Protein backbone atom coordinates (compact mmCIF):
# COMPACT_ATOMS: atom_id res chain seq x y z
CA UNK A 1 0.00 0.00 0.00
CA UNK A 2 1.21 3.46 -0.91
CA UNK A 3 0.19 6.69 0.82
CA UNK A 4 1.29 10.17 -0.15
CA UNK A 5 1.49 13.49 1.61
CA UNK A 6 1.97 17.06 0.43
CA UNK A 7 3.33 19.55 2.95
CA UNK A 8 3.02 23.19 1.92
CA UNK A 9 3.36 26.70 3.30
CA UNK A 10 5.42 29.89 3.18
CA UNK A 11 9.14 29.68 2.57
CA UNK A 12 10.57 29.97 6.09
CA UNK A 13 7.83 28.00 7.83
CA UNK A 14 10.03 24.93 7.90
CA UNK A 15 8.08 22.88 5.36
CA UNK A 16 11.08 21.06 3.90
CA UNK A 17 12.40 20.33 7.41
CA UNK A 18 9.01 18.99 8.53
CA UNK A 19 8.95 16.80 5.41
CA UNK A 20 12.47 15.59 6.13
CA UNK A 21 11.48 14.67 9.69
CA UNK A 22 8.36 12.86 8.47
CA UNK A 23 10.37 10.93 5.85
CA UNK A 24 13.00 10.04 8.46
CA UNK A 25 10.24 8.80 10.79
CA UNK A 26 8.98 6.46 8.08
CA UNK A 27 12.50 5.29 7.30
CA UNK A 28 13.21 4.56 10.98
CA UNK A 29 9.98 2.57 11.07
CA UNK A 30 11.44 0.39 8.30
CA UNK A 31 9.17 1.63 5.51
CA UNK A 32 10.10 2.64 1.98
CA UNK A 33 9.82 6.37 1.56
CA UNK A 34 10.68 9.19 -0.83
CA UNK A 35 10.80 12.96 -0.33
CA UNK A 36 10.61 15.30 -3.30
CA UNK A 37 10.66 19.10 -3.03
CA UNK A 38 9.36 21.70 -5.39
CA UNK A 39 12.54 23.45 -6.43
CA UNK A 40 13.41 26.31 -8.66
CA UNK A 41 13.34 30.06 -8.75
CA UNK A 42 11.41 30.50 -5.52
CA UNK A 43 11.48 33.80 -3.63
CA UNK A 44 11.67 34.31 0.11
CA UNK A 45 8.11 34.64 1.34
CA UNK A 46 6.84 32.59 -1.61
CA UNK A 47 5.28 29.17 -1.25
CA UNK A 48 7.16 25.93 -0.85
CA UNK A 49 6.06 22.33 -0.80
CA UNK A 50 7.35 18.80 -0.66
CA UNK A 51 5.82 15.43 -1.36
CA UNK A 52 6.38 12.34 0.74
CA UNK A 53 5.39 8.90 -0.51
CA UNK A 54 5.47 5.96 1.90
CA UNK A 55 5.01 2.37 0.87
CA UNK A 56 5.31 -1.20 2.16
CA UNK A 57 6.92 -2.12 -1.15
CA UNK A 58 9.17 -0.06 -3.43
CA UNK A 59 7.84 3.48 -3.94
CA UNK A 60 6.47 3.90 -7.47
CA UNK A 61 6.31 7.46 -8.76
CA UNK A 62 7.83 10.08 -6.51
CA UNK A 63 5.87 13.04 -7.84
CA UNK A 64 2.12 12.44 -8.11
CA UNK A 65 -0.79 14.45 -9.38
CA UNK A 66 -3.00 13.87 -6.36
CA UNK A 67 -2.50 13.19 -2.68
CA UNK A 68 -4.02 11.28 0.22
CA UNK A 69 -3.09 13.97 2.75
CA UNK A 70 -2.33 17.66 2.34
CA UNK A 71 -0.84 19.52 5.30
CA UNK A 72 -1.11 23.24 4.58
CA UNK A 73 0.25 26.02 6.75
CA UNK A 74 -0.95 29.07 4.82
CA UNK A 75 -3.94 30.22 2.76
CA UNK A 76 -2.20 30.10 -0.63
CA UNK A 77 -1.27 26.48 -0.05
CA UNK A 78 -4.83 25.62 0.99
CA UNK A 79 -6.19 27.21 -2.20
CA UNK A 80 -3.66 25.40 -4.36
CA UNK A 81 -3.71 21.93 -2.84
CA UNK A 82 -7.36 21.51 -1.82
CA UNK A 83 -7.90 20.65 -5.51
CA UNK A 84 -5.23 17.96 -5.45
CA UNK A 85 -6.57 15.92 -2.53
CA UNK A 86 -7.96 12.55 -3.62
CA UNK A 87 -11.65 11.92 -3.04
CA UNK A 88 -11.86 10.55 0.48
CA UNK A 89 -8.52 12.18 1.35
CA UNK A 90 -7.83 14.75 4.04
CA UNK A 91 -6.62 18.33 4.10
CA UNK A 92 -5.16 19.48 7.40
CA UNK A 93 -4.94 23.24 7.76
CA UNK A 94 -3.28 25.74 10.04
CA UNK A 95 -6.40 27.64 11.09
CA UNK A 96 -4.31 30.52 12.44
CA UNK A 97 -3.58 31.46 8.83
CA UNK A 98 -6.20 29.55 6.83
CA UNK A 99 -9.86 30.59 6.75
CA UNK A 100 -12.38 27.84 7.50
CA UNK A 101 -13.87 27.07 4.08
CA UNK A 102 -14.89 23.71 2.63
CA UNK A 103 -15.07 24.03 -1.14
CA UNK A 104 -15.42 20.27 -1.77
CA UNK A 105 -17.69 17.78 -0.09
CA UNK A 106 -15.77 14.62 -1.01
CA UNK A 107 -12.76 15.20 1.25
CA UNK A 108 -12.16 15.56 4.99
CA UNK A 109 -11.17 18.84 6.61
CA UNK A 110 -9.15 19.24 9.79
CA UNK A 111 -8.39 22.69 11.18
CA UNK A 112 -5.97 23.33 14.06
CA UNK A 113 -4.49 26.65 15.21
CA UNK A 114 -0.90 25.54 14.66
CA UNK A 115 0.86 28.91 14.74
CA UNK A 116 -1.10 29.86 17.87
CA UNK A 117 -0.13 26.60 19.59
CA UNK A 118 3.49 27.23 18.59
CA UNK A 119 3.34 30.78 19.99
CA UNK A 120 2.04 29.33 23.26
CA UNK A 121 5.30 27.38 23.42
CA UNK A 122 7.21 30.62 23.00
CA UNK A 123 8.00 30.69 19.27
CA UNK A 124 6.12 30.45 15.98
CA UNK A 125 9.20 28.73 14.58
CA UNK A 126 7.91 25.34 15.75
CA UNK A 127 4.63 25.64 13.80
CA UNK A 128 5.94 23.01 11.41
CA UNK A 129 6.51 20.51 14.22
CA UNK A 130 3.11 21.28 15.77
CA UNK A 131 1.64 20.47 12.36
CA UNK A 132 3.37 17.08 12.33
CA UNK A 133 1.77 16.35 15.71
CA UNK A 134 -1.62 17.20 14.23
CA UNK A 135 -0.91 14.96 11.25
CA UNK A 136 -0.03 12.06 13.57
CA UNK A 137 -3.29 12.54 15.48
CA UNK A 138 -5.29 12.37 12.27
CA UNK A 139 -3.41 9.82 10.21
CA UNK A 140 -2.84 6.43 11.81
CA UNK A 141 0.13 5.46 9.66
CA UNK A 142 2.13 8.37 11.10
CA UNK A 143 3.53 7.53 14.53
CA UNK A 144 4.35 10.22 17.09
CA UNK A 145 7.01 7.97 18.59
CA UNK A 146 8.82 7.68 15.28
CA UNK A 147 8.33 11.39 14.58
CA UNK A 148 10.12 12.03 17.88
CA UNK A 149 12.93 9.73 16.72
CA UNK A 150 12.95 11.57 13.39
CA UNK A 151 13.32 14.90 15.20
CA UNK A 152 16.22 13.51 17.23
CA UNK A 153 17.92 12.18 14.11
CA UNK A 154 17.55 15.34 12.07
CA UNK A 155 18.35 17.85 14.83
CA UNK A 156 21.02 15.75 16.47
CA UNK A 157 23.84 17.04 14.33
CA UNK A 158 23.73 20.76 14.84
CA UNK A 159 20.73 21.69 16.93
CA UNK A 160 20.69 19.17 19.74
CA UNK A 161 19.61 21.75 22.31
CA UNK A 162 16.37 22.35 20.41
CA UNK A 163 15.19 18.75 20.63
CA UNK A 164 13.17 19.14 23.93
CA UNK A 165 11.28 22.18 22.59
CA UNK A 166 10.45 20.35 19.36
CA UNK A 167 9.26 17.25 21.20
CA UNK A 168 6.99 19.55 23.23
CA UNK A 169 5.73 21.06 19.96
CA UNK A 170 5.04 17.59 18.57
CA UNK A 171 2.76 16.94 21.54
CA UNK A 172 1.15 20.40 21.57
CA UNK A 173 -2.17 19.18 20.32
CA UNK A 174 -4.44 16.58 21.84
CA UNK A 175 -6.62 14.58 19.48
CA UNK A 176 -9.77 15.70 21.30
CA UNK A 177 -9.04 19.34 20.49
CA UNK A 178 -9.25 18.87 16.73
CA UNK A 179 -12.22 20.18 14.80
Amino acid sequence: METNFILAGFGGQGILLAGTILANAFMLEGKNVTWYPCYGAEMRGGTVNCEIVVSDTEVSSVHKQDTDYALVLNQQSFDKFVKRVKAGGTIISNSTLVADSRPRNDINYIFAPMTELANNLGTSKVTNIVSLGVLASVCNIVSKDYLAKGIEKVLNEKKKDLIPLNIKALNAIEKECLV
Partner: protein
Amino acid sequence: MEKEKVLIKGNYAIAQAAVNAGCQCYFGYPITPQTEIGEYLSGKMQGLGRGYVCAESELAAINMVMGAVSTGVKAMTSSSSCAVALMQEALSYAASDELPVVLVNVMRTGPGLGYIYPAQGDYNQAVYGGGNGDYKIIVLAPSTVQECVDLTYRAFYLAQKYRNPVILLADGLLGQMMEPASFGDYPYPEVDVSSWALTGAKGREARKIYSVAPDEKKQIQHIYDLHKKFEVISQNETSYEEFNVDDADYILTAFGSMTRNIKAAMNVLREKGLKIGAFRPITLSPFPYTRINELATKKKDFIVVEMNMGQMFKDVKYAINGKSNVELVNRPCGEWLSVEEIVSSVEKIIGRKQYAASI
Protein backbone atom coordinates in the same frame (compact mmCIF):
# COMPACT_ATOMS: atom_id res chain seq x y z
CA MET B 1 31.78 2.67 6.64
CA GLU B 2 28.36 2.24 8.26
CA LYS B 3 25.79 0.05 6.54
CA GLU B 4 23.00 1.99 8.22
CA LYS B 5 20.46 3.61 5.93
CA VAL B 6 20.35 7.36 5.76
CA LEU B 7 17.72 9.57 4.19
CA ILE B 8 19.69 11.46 1.57
CA LYS B 9 19.24 13.51 -1.61
CA GLY B 10 20.39 11.90 -4.86
CA ASN B 11 22.90 14.70 -5.44
CA TYR B 12 24.45 14.30 -1.99
CA ALA B 13 24.45 10.52 -2.41
CA ILE B 14 26.44 10.84 -5.64
CA ALA B 15 28.87 13.23 -3.96
CA GLN B 16 29.42 11.03 -0.89
CA ALA B 17 29.79 7.94 -3.09
CA ALA B 18 32.48 9.78 -5.08
CA VAL B 19 34.31 10.50 -1.82
CA ASN B 20 34.05 6.83 -0.78
CA ALA B 21 35.22 5.71 -4.23
CA GLY B 22 38.44 7.63 -3.66
CA CYS B 23 37.76 10.58 -5.96
CA GLN B 24 40.79 12.79 -5.33
CA CYS B 25 39.70 15.86 -7.28
CA TYR B 26 36.39 17.49 -8.13
CA PHE B 27 36.10 20.28 -10.67
CA GLY B 28 32.75 21.84 -11.42
CA TYR B 29 30.61 24.85 -12.08
CA PRO B 30 27.18 25.28 -10.45
CA ILE B 31 23.97 24.62 -12.36
CA THR B 32 20.50 23.56 -11.18
CA PRO B 33 19.52 20.77 -10.54
CA GLN B 34 22.94 19.35 -9.58
CA THR B 35 24.55 22.20 -7.61
CA GLU B 36 24.38 20.21 -4.35
CA ILE B 37 27.08 17.87 -5.65
CA GLY B 38 29.61 20.67 -5.83
CA GLU B 39 28.29 22.26 -2.63
CA TYR B 40 28.73 19.02 -0.68
CA LEU B 41 32.18 18.34 -2.07
CA SER B 42 33.39 21.91 -1.53
CA GLY B 43 33.34 21.28 2.21
CA LYS B 44 34.15 17.60 2.17
CA MET B 45 37.19 17.56 -0.12
CA GLN B 46 39.01 20.29 1.74
CA GLY B 47 38.57 18.46 5.02
CA LEU B 48 40.02 15.30 3.47
CA GLY B 49 42.96 17.12 1.93
CA ARG B 50 41.69 16.39 -1.58
CA GLY B 51 41.22 18.77 -4.49
CA TYR B 52 38.17 20.94 -5.14
CA VAL B 53 38.03 23.69 -7.72
CA CYS B 54 34.98 25.74 -8.60
CA ALA B 55 36.07 26.26 -12.20
CA GLU B 56 35.45 29.38 -14.25
CA SER B 57 33.35 27.40 -16.73
CA GLU B 58 32.22 23.88 -17.54
CA LEU B 59 34.76 23.77 -20.32
CA ALA B 60 37.52 24.45 -17.84
CA ALA B 61 36.11 21.92 -15.39
CA ILE B 62 36.12 18.96 -17.78
CA ASN B 63 39.60 19.85 -19.03
CA MET B 64 40.81 19.98 -15.42
CA VAL B 65 39.37 16.50 -14.91
CA MET B 66 41.28 15.31 -17.99
CA GLY B 67 44.47 16.73 -16.54
CA ALA B 68 43.90 15.16 -13.14
CA VAL B 69 43.01 11.67 -14.38
CA SER B 70 46.08 11.69 -16.66
CA THR B 71 48.13 11.40 -13.50
CA GLY B 72 46.28 8.23 -12.49
CA VAL B 73 44.07 9.68 -9.75
CA LYS B 74 40.30 9.43 -9.72
CA ALA B 75 38.57 12.69 -10.54
CA MET B 76 35.17 13.85 -11.67
CA THR B 77 32.96 16.72 -12.67
CA SER B 78 29.20 17.09 -12.59
CA SER B 79 26.83 19.28 -14.48
CA SER B 80 23.47 19.39 -16.20
CA SER B 81 22.24 19.15 -19.80
CA CYS B 82 23.01 22.49 -21.46
CA ALA B 83 26.32 22.73 -19.61
CA VAL B 84 27.24 19.13 -20.41
CA ALA B 85 26.78 20.22 -24.03
CA LEU B 86 29.81 22.46 -23.51
CA MET B 87 31.90 19.45 -22.49
CA GLN B 88 31.37 17.38 -25.59
CA GLU B 89 34.63 18.33 -27.31
CA ALA B 90 36.58 17.27 -24.23
CA LEU B 91 34.71 13.95 -24.05
CA SER B 92 35.79 13.13 -27.59
CA TYR B 93 39.40 13.91 -26.64
CA ALA B 94 39.12 11.93 -23.40
CA ALA B 95 37.75 8.91 -25.26
CA SER B 96 40.55 9.12 -27.81
CA ASP B 97 43.19 9.63 -25.12
CA GLU B 98 41.62 6.80 -23.12
CA LEU B 99 41.24 8.91 -20.01
CA PRO B 100 39.10 7.63 -17.12
CA VAL B 101 36.96 10.76 -16.83
CA VAL B 102 33.82 10.49 -14.69
CA LEU B 103 31.07 12.94 -15.61
CA VAL B 104 27.73 13.17 -13.80
CA ASN B 105 24.85 14.64 -15.80
CA VAL B 106 21.78 15.43 -13.69
CA MET B 107 19.45 16.06 -16.61
CA ARG B 108 17.15 19.05 -16.92
CA THR B 109 15.00 20.13 -19.83
CA GLY B 110 16.42 21.24 -23.17
CA PRO B 111 17.05 22.14 -25.91
CA GLY B 112 19.03 25.30 -25.35
CA LEU B 113 19.02 26.70 -21.85
CA GLY B 114 15.63 25.05 -21.44
CA TYR B 115 14.15 24.68 -18.02
CA ILE B 116 15.40 23.52 -14.65
CA TYR B 117 12.92 20.70 -14.18
CA PRO B 118 13.77 17.04 -14.85
CA ALA B 119 13.67 15.45 -18.29
CA GLN B 120 15.37 12.61 -20.14
CA GLY B 121 16.29 14.49 -23.29
CA ASP B 122 20.05 13.85 -23.05
CA TYR B 123 19.92 10.15 -23.91
CA ASN B 124 21.33 10.85 -27.36
CA GLN B 125 23.84 13.37 -26.02
CA ALA B 126 25.18 10.81 -23.54
CA VAL B 127 24.98 7.64 -25.61
CA TYR B 128 25.87 8.98 -29.05
CA GLY B 129 27.80 12.02 -27.92
CA GLY B 130 28.23 15.49 -29.31
CA GLY B 131 31.95 15.24 -29.91
CA ASN B 132 33.65 14.46 -33.20
CA GLY B 133 34.85 11.13 -34.45
CA ASP B 134 34.10 7.49 -33.71
CA TYR B 135 34.16 7.26 -29.95
CA LYS B 136 32.07 5.57 -27.31
CA ILE B 137 31.30 6.45 -23.73
CA ILE B 138 30.06 4.14 -21.00
CA VAL B 139 26.69 5.44 -19.75
CA LEU B 140 25.06 4.31 -16.50
CA ALA B 141 21.50 5.31 -15.60
CA PRO B 142 20.41 5.06 -11.93
CA SER B 143 16.71 4.77 -11.03
CA THR B 144 16.84 5.19 -7.24
CA VAL B 145 19.00 7.08 -4.74
CA GLN B 146 20.57 3.75 -3.72
CA GLU B 147 21.63 3.29 -7.33
CA CYS B 148 23.04 6.82 -7.37
CA VAL B 149 25.48 5.39 -4.81
CA ASP B 150 26.05 2.00 -6.43
CA LEU B 151 26.48 3.30 -9.96
CA THR B 152 28.79 6.13 -8.89
CA TYR B 153 31.03 3.42 -7.42
CA ARG B 154 30.74 1.48 -10.65
CA ALA B 155 31.46 4.57 -12.76
CA PHE B 156 34.83 5.15 -11.06
CA TYR B 157 35.74 1.48 -11.36
CA LEU B 158 34.78 1.07 -15.04
CA ALA B 159 36.47 4.33 -16.02
CA GLN B 160 39.82 3.12 -14.73
CA LYS B 161 39.36 -0.54 -15.61
CA TYR B 162 38.80 0.26 -19.29
CA ARG B 163 40.48 3.68 -19.47
CA ASN B 164 37.28 5.10 -20.89
CA PRO B 165 35.11 8.10 -19.96
CA VAL B 166 31.95 7.20 -18.04
CA ILE B 167 28.78 9.29 -17.77
CA LEU B 168 26.42 8.79 -14.84
CA LEU B 169 23.13 9.89 -16.38
CA ALA B 170 20.76 10.91 -13.59
CA ASP B 171 17.90 13.40 -13.79
CA GLY B 172 16.66 16.33 -11.73
CA LEU B 173 14.10 14.18 -10.01
CA LEU B 174 16.75 11.78 -8.70
CA GLY B 175 19.09 14.64 -7.88
CA GLN B 176 16.56 16.51 -5.78
CA MET B 177 14.63 13.69 -4.11
CA MET B 178 15.54 12.04 -0.83
CA GLU B 179 15.30 8.32 -0.24
CA PRO B 180 16.95 5.95 2.25
CA ALA B 181 20.27 4.62 0.99
CA SER B 182 23.22 2.82 2.48
CA PHE B 183 26.79 3.43 1.37
CA GLY B 184 28.95 0.54 2.54
CA ASP B 185 32.57 0.53 1.42
CA TYR B 186 33.69 1.08 -2.16
CA PRO B 187 33.14 -2.47 -3.43
CA TYR B 188 35.66 -2.62 -6.29
CA PRO B 189 39.38 -3.37 -6.35
CA GLU B 190 41.80 -0.55 -7.08
CA VAL B 191 42.92 -0.59 -10.71
CA ASP B 192 46.65 -0.54 -11.43
CA VAL B 193 47.32 2.57 -13.52
CA SER B 194 51.10 2.45 -13.28
CA SER B 195 51.58 1.34 -16.88
CA TRP B 196 50.19 4.53 -18.38
CA ALA B 197 49.69 7.28 -15.80
CA LEU B 198 51.79 10.43 -16.08
CA THR B 199 53.58 10.44 -12.78
CA GLY B 200 56.94 11.96 -13.68
CA ALA B 201 59.47 10.20 -15.89
CA LYS B 202 62.27 9.99 -13.39
CA GLY B 203 63.80 6.54 -13.73
CA ARG B 204 61.66 5.47 -16.65
CA GLU B 205 61.01 6.34 -20.26
CA ALA B 206 58.91 9.44 -20.89
CA ARG B 207 55.23 8.96 -21.77
CA LYS B 208 52.80 11.06 -23.72
CA ILE B 209 49.02 11.10 -23.79
CA TYR B 210 47.72 12.84 -26.89
CA SER B 211 45.05 12.36 -29.49
CA VAL B 212 46.78 13.21 -32.74
CA ALA B 213 48.29 10.43 -34.84
CA PRO B 214 50.21 12.05 -37.70
CA ASP B 215 50.13 8.77 -39.50
CA GLU B 216 47.18 7.22 -41.35
CA LYS B 217 47.92 3.64 -40.38
CA LYS B 218 48.32 4.49 -36.73
CA GLN B 219 45.05 6.42 -36.71
CA ILE B 220 43.19 3.55 -38.38
CA GLN B 221 44.61 1.12 -35.86
CA HIS B 222 43.76 3.46 -32.96
CA ILE B 223 40.09 3.56 -33.94
CA TYR B 224 39.97 -0.21 -34.38
CA ASP B 225 41.56 -0.62 -30.96
CA LEU B 226 39.07 1.72 -29.31
CA HIS B 227 36.19 -0.21 -30.81
CA LYS B 228 37.68 -3.59 -29.93
CA LYS B 229 37.90 -2.32 -26.37
CA PHE B 230 34.25 -1.32 -26.43
CA GLU B 231 33.29 -4.78 -27.69
CA VAL B 232 34.95 -6.21 -24.58
CA ILE B 233 33.09 -3.64 -22.47
CA SER B 234 29.81 -4.70 -24.14
CA GLN B 235 30.47 -8.36 -23.42
CA ASN B 236 31.51 -7.83 -19.80
CA GLU B 237 29.59 -4.87 -18.56
CA THR B 238 26.17 -4.69 -20.28
CA SER B 239 23.59 -4.77 -17.52
CA TYR B 240 19.83 -4.55 -17.26
CA GLU B 241 16.94 -5.53 -15.03
CA GLU B 242 13.84 -7.41 -16.15
CA PHE B 243 10.58 -8.23 -14.42
CA ASN B 244 7.91 -10.78 -15.40
CA VAL B 245 9.19 -11.06 -18.97
CA ASP B 246 8.77 -14.83 -19.27
CA ASP B 247 5.02 -14.92 -19.84
CA ALA B 248 4.68 -11.30 -20.99
CA ASP B 249 3.00 -10.31 -24.25
CA TYR B 250 4.13 -6.71 -23.82
CA ILE B 251 7.27 -5.42 -22.17
CA LEU B 252 7.34 -1.89 -20.80
CA THR B 253 10.81 -0.38 -21.20
CA ALA B 254 12.25 2.71 -19.55
CA PHE B 255 15.52 4.02 -18.18
CA GLY B 256 16.47 6.05 -15.13
CA SER B 257 13.86 7.19 -12.62
CA MET B 258 11.00 6.37 -15.04
CA THR B 259 11.76 2.72 -14.23
CA ARG B 260 9.85 3.12 -10.95
CA ASN B 261 6.72 4.20 -12.83
CA ILE B 262 6.76 1.37 -15.39
CA LYS B 263 7.19 -1.23 -12.64
CA ALA B 264 4.17 0.18 -10.81
CA ALA B 265 2.19 0.34 -14.08
CA MET B 266 3.14 -3.29 -14.79
CA ASN B 267 1.74 -4.33 -11.40
CA VAL B 268 -1.54 -2.47 -12.01
CA LEU B 269 -1.93 -4.00 -15.48
CA ARG B 270 -1.10 -7.49 -14.17
CA GLU B 271 -3.86 -7.12 -11.58
CA LYS B 272 -6.20 -6.41 -14.49
CA GLY B 273 -5.15 -9.73 -16.06
CA LEU B 274 -2.86 -8.37 -18.78
CA LYS B 275 0.47 -10.11 -19.32
CA ILE B 276 2.87 -7.22 -18.96
CA GLY B 277 6.58 -7.33 -18.18
CA ALA B 278 9.16 -4.61 -17.62
CA PHE B 279 12.70 -4.16 -18.87
CA ARG B 280 15.19 -1.55 -17.89
CA PRO B 281 18.71 -1.04 -19.22
CA ILE B 282 21.14 -0.08 -16.45
CA THR B 283 23.94 0.54 -18.95
CA LEU B 284 22.56 2.71 -21.76
CA SER B 285 25.93 2.31 -23.42
CA PRO B 286 26.71 -0.54 -23.93
CA PHE B 287 23.00 -1.04 -24.64
CA PRO B 288 21.46 -4.50 -24.03
CA TYR B 289 20.69 -5.08 -27.72
CA THR B 290 21.17 -8.84 -27.52
CA ARG B 291 18.73 -9.42 -24.67
CA ILE B 292 16.04 -7.22 -26.23
CA ASN B 293 16.48 -9.07 -29.52
CA GLU B 294 16.08 -12.42 -27.73
CA LEU B 295 12.84 -11.24 -26.14
CA ALA B 296 11.59 -9.85 -29.44
CA THR B 297 12.30 -13.19 -31.12
CA LYS B 298 9.82 -14.69 -28.65
CA LYS B 299 7.18 -12.37 -30.15
CA LYS B 300 7.03 -10.02 -27.20
CA ASP B 301 6.10 -6.47 -28.15
CA PHE B 302 7.82 -3.50 -26.51
CA ILE B 303 6.36 -0.26 -25.20
CA VAL B 304 9.04 2.35 -24.52
CA VAL B 305 8.17 4.97 -21.89
CA GLU B 306 10.43 8.01 -21.68
CA MET B 307 10.50 11.75 -20.97
CA ASN B 308 11.78 12.82 -24.39
CA MET B 309 10.62 12.56 -27.99
CA GLY B 310 11.67 8.93 -28.40
CA GLN B 311 15.44 8.72 -28.05
CA MET B 312 15.89 5.29 -26.41
CA PHE B 313 12.92 4.19 -28.54
CA LYS B 314 15.24 4.13 -31.57
CA ASP B 315 17.72 1.85 -29.83
CA VAL B 316 14.96 -0.54 -28.78
CA LYS B 317 13.65 -0.54 -32.34
CA TYR B 318 17.14 -1.24 -33.65
CA ALA B 319 17.56 -4.08 -31.14
CA ILE B 320 14.20 -5.62 -32.09
CA ASN B 321 15.13 -5.40 -35.76
CA GLY B 322 11.61 -6.09 -37.02
CA LYS B 323 11.11 -9.25 -34.99
CA SER B 324 8.27 -7.76 -32.94
CA ASN B 325 6.55 -4.39 -32.58
CA VAL B 326 7.53 -1.35 -30.57
CA GLU B 327 5.41 1.60 -29.44
CA LEU B 328 6.32 4.86 -27.75
CA VAL B 329 4.60 6.44 -24.75
CA ASN B 330 6.26 9.76 -24.01
CA ARG B 331 6.14 13.40 -23.01
CA PRO B 332 8.94 15.82 -23.91
CA CYS B 333 9.37 17.24 -20.40
CA GLY B 334 7.45 18.53 -17.40
CA GLU B 335 5.43 16.40 -15.00
CA TRP B 336 6.70 12.79 -15.10
CA LEU B 337 4.27 10.41 -16.84
CA SER B 338 2.18 9.05 -13.98
CA VAL B 339 1.44 5.40 -13.37
CA GLU B 340 -2.21 6.04 -14.31
CA GLU B 341 -1.22 7.68 -17.60
CA ILE B 342 1.09 4.80 -18.50
CA VAL B 343 -1.63 2.27 -17.65
CA SER B 344 -4.23 4.00 -19.81
CA SER B 345 -1.77 4.43 -22.72
CA VAL B 346 -0.90 0.73 -22.61
CA GLU B 347 -4.58 -0.23 -22.50
CA LYS B 348 -5.21 1.95 -25.56
CA ILE B 349 -2.32 0.37 -27.45
CA ILE B 350 -3.51 -3.15 -26.61
CA GLY B 351 -7.11 -2.27 -27.47
CA ARG B 352 -6.05 -0.87 -30.83
CA LYS B 353 -4.08 -4.01 -31.66
CA GLN B 354 -6.91 -6.32 -30.64
CA TYR B 355 -9.30 -4.33 -32.80
CA ALA B 356 -6.89 -4.43 -35.75
CA ALA B 357 -6.53 -8.20 -35.34
CA SER B 358 -10.30 -8.71 -35.22
CA ILE B 359 -11.09 -7.09 -38.58
